[in-house]
């Protein structure tokens, strides 16, 4: 066969031009879709007036007012009272003072942030732990009614949380789990299990059975091969699944808004309630959003290599 194409590259490798077009289109997509994110990020550093001006301000004097408002509670004071106070000692007191206000105390933001960390990462750990075990069993052993059981696991995702919240509320009240970290961790772990079992089973299915069979012949026990062979081979899949689980439990809102009140409330129901003097305090909401997404992004970047390798896992089998 005479080759009409450039022989310096494999026929599978896309041509340089098609690569350029692809890169151009992807960057265009990123530019369009990142506008809302950039808008959030810039609003976090605006003052209330800048945030509400039209046309939207692209150039503005950055201010940390949003962040200060996010973590403090303030009260408006009369001019005479403010004059009688000693001059502000810190930069944040100064920002608040310029608004004719004084800081009364910390807001609930940091406590809610702590709740999000405990519940989000706790639930991710347990859904990966139990999910890996179940996925392995479903992947490697003959289980009666396996397909029906797997569909049952998936079907647990189909019931709207808003409807499930009433029975869970009544059950949790009986068990004393309402508005507790433990209760929310159990809840999120379970909701995530359907996803983690399905995804992880896919990944474990891809690991050739021959590896294990060889080890079993060598006298390894089943559990030993699970720990020594399956776990390291499935690490990329586990990492990719962990990202999905964290994204869900970190961001969950319906259960959190209906089942938590004081002790265990996470940030998603809290952020939309940050009110200033005329409705929502947009710079503070934006600042809260910005801080809120940092842990997920760090987690994703740490596991990024695995995510990319995790989704290309299928390619390994051939």
């Amino acid at each position, binding site marked *: *066969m005479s080759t009409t194409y450039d022989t310096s590259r494999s026929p599978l490798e896309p041509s340089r031009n098609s690569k350029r077009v692809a890169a151009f289109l992807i960057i265009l997509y990123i530019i369009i879709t990142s506008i809302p994110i950039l808008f959030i990020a810039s609003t976090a550093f605006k003052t209330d007036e800048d945030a509400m001006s039209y046309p939207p301000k692209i150039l503005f004097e950055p201010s940390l007012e949003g962040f200060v408002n996010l973590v403090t509670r303030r009260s408006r004071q009369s001019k005479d009272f403010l004059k009688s106070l000693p001059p502000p000692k810190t930069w944040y007191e100064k920002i608040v003072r310029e608004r004719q206000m004084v800081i009364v105390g910390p807001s609930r933001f940091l406590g809610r942030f702590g709740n999000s960390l405990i519940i989000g990462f706790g639930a991710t750990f347990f859904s990966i732990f139990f999910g890996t075990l179940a996925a392995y069993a479903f992947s490697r052993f003959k289980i009666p009614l396996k397909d029906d059981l797997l569909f049952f696991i998936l079907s647990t995702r189909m019931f*709207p949380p808003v409807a499930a919240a009433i029975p869970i*509320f009544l059950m949790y009240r009986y068990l004393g789990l309402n508005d507790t970290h433990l209760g929310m961790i159990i809840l999120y772990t379970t909701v995530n299990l359907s996803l983690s079992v399905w995804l992880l089973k896919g990944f474990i299915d891809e690991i050739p059975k021959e590896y294990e069979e060889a080890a079993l012949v060598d006298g390894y026990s089943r559990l030993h091969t*699970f720990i020594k062979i399956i776990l390291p081979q499935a690490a990329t899949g586990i990492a990719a699944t962990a990202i999905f689980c964290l994204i869900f439990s970190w*961001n969950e809102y*319906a259960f959190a808004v209906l089942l938590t009140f004081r002790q265990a409330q996470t940030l998603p129901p809290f952020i939309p309630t940050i009110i200033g003097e005329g409705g929502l305090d947009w710079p503070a909401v934006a600042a809260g959003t910005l801080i809120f997404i940092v842990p997920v992004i760090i987690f994703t970047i740490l596991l990024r290599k695995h995510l*990319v390798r995790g989704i290309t896992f299928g390619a390994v089998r051939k």
Partner: protein
Amino acid sequence: MHGPIKKINTKLLNMSDRSIVWAFTLPTLILLVFINIYPLIWTIYLSFTDFKANRPGRVIHWVGMKWYEKALTNGDVWGYMQTTAHFVVWTILIQAALGFGLSLLLNRKFKGNEVLTTIVILPMMLSPAVVGVFWKYIYQPQAGIFDYIINVFHHFGSFSMLSNVSLAPWSIIVVDTWMWTPFIMLLCLAGLRSIPGYIYEAAEVDGASKWQQFIHITFPSVLPFLMLAVLFRGIENFKMFDMVNELTGGGPGSITEVASIYLKRAAFEKWRTGDSSAFAVILFVCVLGAGMIYVKILNKLKET
């Protein structure tokens, strides 16, 4: 290792296959039964009673099929179902097309595509509730950036996506598409990368055109992954609550009142527990039925 610990360890390591199956699946199944099945059965029970969650002490009466009859004959309920269907169908169609397209582009393996993949998936890491509240700001006619950008391309003047009756249903579709297209893209990309290179080489040798390769190799290989992504998105959007609740709250009026918003209003604002339970069960049966058929098709596709 010391004696007793070693003994326990060897005992554990030598677990029989049967006990491994039990030990490995039981925690998952117990959790699912307690947190998912038990509430479901309870909800089914409540849907036949006149229980009200805000009056727990009252005597509960059995009312039979009353709430089901009411839900199935009530025109409003069909309206909410239609609103939900409009939302689910359009988001799935747009996201599947865009997501599949993006995955084809990202699979071109140009320089830096891994970094760009990470940037593309950024929106889906955000909290839907927080996204909802923030897009409310973006859509604001006075201060938001959405109106401003649209007006740069074509001068419509000031308009409000969220309070216009014909635009509001699309406002939630835009936000959902912005957020979840990367999810479909990610799964399609996994499908594309699982195609072994030698298949294309063989096709090339056989003289298949690029278009033929796409139709006969690329598309069928990605289809199961695309369908799995659509399944997950379909289920999620059927019960969509958080983003819509914060963005429109079902408004204006009840134009964007998708099923879950109606459920919340009935269950937690009007405290009609029996009523809302019946609707939740109907909804669940619909999704379950559709899901069963879908998974059957998906499994058939995988076999071929």
